[in-house]
């Protein structure tokens, strides 16, 4: 079977859709399609994993077209393997470009991670060392993606469980250098910051203070699970299978006060709840965005 997207996709012009500003959105899960369509047009946006829509046709595209008709879309790539040492998969990049052309998403993002080595695809977001060599390779890969889609990509900070002995710079320095060298934007996953901070024993607040917030074009919020490491210490797992933790909500509010409103996604990928539960999480994020927006507006008036 071929895996082509629509055959004409390479001829479809790449166009931006309108910026969406400080609104909250959710992952789109096919099991919620009827509930979403019966509610009608809503404020907010939906995010999908690009790879789930890389088939040639069938029900997935019908569902995504129905969603896209009334809502802005965020296209979130999971498998580009941007952080890996080997060259990007050209066929995969062409499929990704085809989806950007077909659905004209408001946001396009990928991960600072890798998932393919040689011919094997591992279906996980694997970590990389932060060195001059990996920095150069990641920047080359982002150049290629941005050339293909003709727009800035938003790159997501990872959640990690191990560190590399060879790393010579901090994650925030590494990410800042990527953004400065490639012009890409950043997707700040605040749950990932919280998970990594716990797992590696650093301060999430300090990480956020060093993170180049001016480049952030989207925020992710998600739930995590708890395990233990070899020493019996808490190890957080980026599981996306539950509500956003209180500590992550607090960090979110701090970031929004500092950065201003940006599109914010509630990510929920397994043990998927009924649509109203997901909707309520998005409403909670929207309330924080609105509150910070009002404060900022009041501040502006006061200043003039």
């Amino acid at each position, binding site marked *: 079977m071929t895996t082509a997207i629509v055959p004409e996709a390479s001829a479809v012009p790449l166009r931006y859709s309108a910026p969406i500003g400080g609104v909250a959105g959710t992952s789109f899960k096919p099991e919620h399609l009827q509930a979403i369509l019966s509610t009608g047009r809503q404020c907010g946006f939906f995010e999908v994993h690009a*790879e789930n829509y890389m088939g040639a046709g*069938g029900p997935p595209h019908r569902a995504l077209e129905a969603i896209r008709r009334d809502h802005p879309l965020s296209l979130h790539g*999971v498998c580009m393997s941007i952080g890996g040492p080997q060259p990007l998969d050209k066929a995969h990049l062409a499929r990704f470009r085809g989806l950007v052309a077909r659905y004209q998403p408001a946001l396009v993002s990928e991960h600072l991670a890798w998932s393919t080595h040689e011919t094997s695809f591992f*279906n996980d977001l694997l970590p990389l*060392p932060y060195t*001059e060599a990996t920095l150069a390779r990641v920047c080359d890969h982002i150049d290629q993606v941005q050339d293909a889609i003709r727009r800035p990509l938003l790159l997501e900070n990872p959640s990690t*469980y191990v560190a590399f002995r060879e790393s010579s710079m901090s994650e925030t320095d590494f990410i800042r250098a990527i953004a400065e060298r490639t012009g890409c934007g950043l997707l700040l996953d605040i749950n990932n910051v919280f998970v990594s901070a716990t797992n590696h024993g650093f301060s999430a607040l300090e990480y956020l203070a060093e993170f180049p917030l001016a480049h952030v074009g989207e925020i992710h919020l998600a739930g995590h699970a708890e395990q233990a490491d*070899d*020493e019996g210490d808490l190890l957080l797992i980026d599981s996306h299978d539950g509500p956003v933790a209180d500590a992550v909500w607090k960090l979110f509010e701090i970031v929004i006060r500092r950065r201003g409103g940006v599109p914010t996604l509630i990510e929920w990928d397994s043990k998927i709840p009924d649509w109203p539960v997901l909707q309520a999480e998005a409403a909670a994020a929207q309330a924080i965005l609105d509150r910070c927006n009002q404060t900022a507006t009041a501040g502006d008036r006061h200043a003039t």
Partner: protein
Amino acid sequence: MPPEQDLSFAAAFTPGLLDPTRAAPAIVAGPNGKAAGKRYAVYRNNVTVSLIDALAAIYPAVQRITGPDFFRAMARFHIRSSPPTSPLLFEYGREFADFITRYEYAQTMPWLADVARIERAWLDAYHAQDAAPLSAAALAAFASERLADLVFIAHPALRIVRSSFSAVTIFAANRDDAPVGRIDASTPEDALITRPEFDVMVRRLPPGGAVFAERLASGEPLRGAAASALDACPDFDLASNITGLIEAGAFTSLALGDA
């Protein structure tokens, strides 16, 4: 420093992902020199569980037949010996049916691999390119003396799976949660898988129907395809087979082949 040396982390990180007997790679650590065993095992677990889940999503009837414990043990062997080579997981598992045929503990279920083949074909049909199916009226537009030379263009979703067992009946009985009665597994059944619009259909082909549909789908004109079907099965009924295939959405259009 040569760049390949600087970028060797992936080659060091991956071998243990599908091999639980390997220790965590020496290039990684926890904070302050802490051990990385359980930490690295998170990645191994993510890879293993997500790939087993991917097979379970592609093969729900196989899993229902074997039960989840049997299925996940069998799938774990398979993902370790044949990890995916494409980032598109809906393409994964093409070698799973052959693996089941060889799998020691599945030998008492000789029809299980054919059920898997139908499920793999089902997913191919689900993701296939959209195309309008051929209407019965299109066939009627051709003069009867030219029918024998007609070539039937296969719909992108069309798949045929042949089985020496009652694979279609077993598949159909296990794709949902309804109770399954006793099934005589010994009747050979051939599956026709189509997706005329958005719903995948799996039907049992009549005698000779699989040969006929395969020949037509390969581009052979009607005359030759019908002759092959009659060769394979003297009871082959041409009219009902053509009607059945068109009704199921097996084709998109007609062309006149070389007479």
